[in-house]
């Protein structure tokens, strides 16, 4: 009897273990998630490849209900937590594809999606171009910056695989994110330095030193003179004090070279190395996660923050509420190297989002996806994604959209942003609404609270005394990728920012320059000179971006 029991239990255990192993190998993702849903709608799997984005906690939202009613589509969202570039490479390498991909229109993320489109992993959109006017408009040649049009939109033998979104429809729609250094007002008062008097790099250093020497403490912990957000974003934006800010700079002979090879880049590196060495910058800045970075801001432990202003306003909201007078205000405007002092701020305002239908989506899925995307790119879809449901969250009054007060108060009181998401606003739909028409069509952001608008306006007055200049020229960074040497050169180019970070933590100035020079040599070995020659030849006679500020 015991033997029978023992055998029975053994067989059961083995079956469970084998079954468990095999079930781990089954595919529970991919095609299984999309298709005809039980309620007759068509379910589309959509990847919103923006790090830190997220959706509703309560299932289908009121905004998505309207989308379902208008297009017959329901959405199964996936959000990225981590590097967007890694996510792009991962989905195409594993072929675990969504039906619709949407993500950043720059950097490695864009390179990855272009590579996929060239290899036909992204499906051709405009088989039915006549039926989808809103999509056609958003990628018309006149609506896309020229180099980006050549690189990403019109790069597949006349076929169109990618949509560009959020490019300003009119000048008034262009978003200036007001990147810069911002100091806590109470700390600037304590050290007795007027932030607007800080204009030169020497004055900036003196300001940081004065904060350090004041030995400020919060909850028994030291206050860092300079800090940033996760992985050091965007502590390094002081580069414009050492060169013109563009990745490629004018050599003076009608050609350009990468700023990594300039004297200004060396000075920039050594300046930051001095900040690290003298304890003027948070040494954990490049190793910290977003929660740790925000915890430091919430504890009041960062005196000067480098980032765009909306991120700073959001991150410091809690601390400022409990410590009135501790608002972050702009430093400078800081001097810009190699640039006339009265020059407007050169900003690369363009679309920030690309969208593709992948090869995972076939037949009825393509029709559903195109219908959905076209609706979202319409004015109605734009207003729905940005403002919510008309008649519930907002109404038209005298031809202008006006927020419903009840919802305005709820959204303003909610610091987590969850209430908005649960209604279907800021869940990723705003990324796929075609060109940005927030002012020209939608009458300005109805959910922005007046205090925030005032702070932005005040910062704009300080940081943009000469206004802004929207860059429409060719970016050499888009052209060099077409050079025959690019495949060999790219890994070395990708190392530049890592090498810079290593250099600013080097033991000495010589060691720091050694790291930079070592990579310069490797760049040359892997075809930099030839690739630059190709780039310069292709840019001859064209307007080229050599001056730029972060945006």
């Amino acid at each position: 009897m015991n033997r029978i029991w023992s055998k029975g239990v053994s067989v059961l255990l083995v079956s469970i273990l084998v079954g468990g192993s095999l079930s781990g190998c089954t595919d529970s993702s991919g095609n299984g998630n999309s298709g005809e849903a039980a309620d007759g709608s068509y379910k589309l799997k959509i990847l919103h490849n923006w790090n830190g984005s997220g959706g509703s906690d309560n299932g289908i939202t009121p905004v998505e209900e309207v989308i379902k009613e208008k297009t017959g589509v329901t959405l199964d969202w996936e959000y990225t937590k981590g590097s967007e570039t890694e996510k792009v490479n991962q989905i195409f390498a594993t072929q675990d594809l969504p039906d619709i991909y949407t993500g950043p229109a720059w950097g490695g993320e864009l390179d990855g999606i272009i590579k996929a489109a060239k290899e036909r992993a992204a499906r051709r959109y405009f088989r039915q171009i006549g039926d989808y006017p809103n999509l056609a408009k958003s990628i018309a040649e006149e609506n896309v910056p020229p180099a980006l049009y050549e690189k990403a939109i019109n790069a597949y033998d006349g076929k169109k695989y990618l949509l560009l979104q959020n490019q300003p429809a009119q000048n008034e729609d262009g978003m200036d994110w007001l990147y810069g250094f911002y100091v806590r007002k109470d700390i600037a008062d304590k050290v007795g330095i007027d932030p607007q008097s800080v204009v030169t790099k020497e004055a900036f250093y003196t300001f940081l030193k004065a904060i350090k020497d004041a030995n400020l403490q919060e909850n028994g912990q030291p206050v860092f003179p300079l800090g940033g957000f996760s992985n050091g974003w965007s502590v390094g934006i002081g580069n414009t004090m050492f060169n013109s800010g563009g990745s490629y700079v004018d050599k003076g002979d009608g050609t350009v070279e990468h700023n990594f090879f300039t004297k200004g880049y060396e000075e920039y590196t050594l300046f930051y190395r001095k900040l690290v060495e003298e304890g003027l910058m948070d040494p954990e800045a490049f190793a910290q996660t977003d929660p740790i970075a925000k915890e430091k801001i919430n504890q009041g432990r960062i005196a000067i923050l480098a980032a765009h202003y909306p991120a700073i306003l959001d991150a410091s909201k809690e601390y400022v509420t409990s410590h009135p007078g501790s608002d972050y205000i702009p430093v400078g405007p800081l001097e810009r190297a190699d640039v006339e002092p009265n020059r407007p701020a050169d900003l690369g305002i363009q679309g920030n989002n690309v969208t593709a239908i992948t090869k995972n989506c076939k037949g009825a899925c393509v029709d559903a996806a195109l219908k959905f995307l076209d609706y979202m790119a319409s004015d109605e879809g734009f207003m729905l994604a940005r403002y919510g449901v008309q008649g519930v969250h907002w109404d038209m009054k005298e031809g202008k959209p006006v927020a419903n007060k009840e919802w305005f108060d709820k959204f303003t009181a909610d610091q987590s942003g969850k209430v908005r998401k649960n209604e279907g606003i800021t869940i990723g739909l705003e990324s796929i609404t075609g060109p940005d028409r927030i002012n020209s069509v939608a009458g300005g952001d109805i959910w922005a609270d007046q205090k925030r608008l005032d702070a932005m306006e005040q910062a704009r007055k300080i940081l943009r005394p000469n206004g802004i200049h929207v860059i429409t020229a060719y970016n050499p960074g888009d052209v060099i990728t077409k050079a025959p040497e690019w495949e060999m050169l790219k890994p070395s180019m990708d190392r530049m920012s890592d090498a810079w970070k290593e250099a600013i933590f080097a033991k000495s100035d010589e060691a720091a320059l050694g790291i930079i020079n070592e990579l310069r040599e490797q760049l040359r070995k892997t075809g930099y000179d030839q690739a630059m020659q190709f780039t310069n030849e292709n840019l001859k006679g064209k307007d080229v971006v050599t001056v730029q500020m972060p945006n």
Partner: protein
Amino acid sequence: MIKNSVLMKRIWKHKLFYLFMLPGIIWFFLFSYVPLYGIQVAFRDYTFVGGFTGSPWAGFKYFQQFFNYYQSGDIIRNTVIISLMKLLIGFPMPIILAILLNEIRMIRFKKTVQTLSYLPYFVSWIVVVTLMQRLLTPYGGPVNDLLGSFGTDPIQFLNNPTWFYQIIVGSDIWKNIGWNSIIFMAAIAGIDQQQYEAAKIDGAGRFQQIWHVTLPGIRNVAIILFILAVGNLMSAGYEQLLLLNGPATAGMGSVLDVHAINSGIREGRLSYAAAVGLFQSVIGLILVLTVNRIARKVSDVSLF
């Protein structure tokens, strides 16, 4: 033929034990042998559409790229240094722990220590590193607070070349010591108790019993595990180094595993990453074969 039938009879006789091996065999087959066909990616220009078998052949292009890369020498050197330190310092630690645990006579205390030492193995590196960041930060971390109470200045433990190796090797030992000691505990439990009694009669004390009975009793297991550990010499542990290596320590902490992951996932160079991974594995295999041969000559103990 006769040999085979004897083997089959023995297998049938112990069928239940063989049945219990089945999940392990399936696991190894699925996750260690089936993926071997992916090795070909290292010799192809991998494309998303062509996949493993449809992408064009590239020969040794990606191996050449790796050896021409200006940091490949540093990366290999860092990998070997960190692995060697982990091997030389980390390998004896579970043996010491197993022997110490074996000497404890209070069963409840022994079990508590055992359980506590196993726990870190089950905690992911991301949690361990977050804990370390909290514990070791010079800005309010308990370790620096404690040191401060003795008058020591705050120490930047993480992202600091001075403390890099200590942190890497120390955290690796802390995480794995308990789990790795299990096999030695089992080996010690298999030693004939009569040997201890004979040693006692001959007047051997506790330390002499460890030296003359326990250590020789686990020698074979230790040699086998050492041979296997040498096979990992080109693999320094990617999760730990991906998370603990910062810009200040990049010169010491850039290792093959992280280079492969970054090239493949961050830069999308999948064939290159596969070539780096294959290089690691081939060197590992050569090392295992070499050490196995040496071990067989020196001690008659070997894997095969």
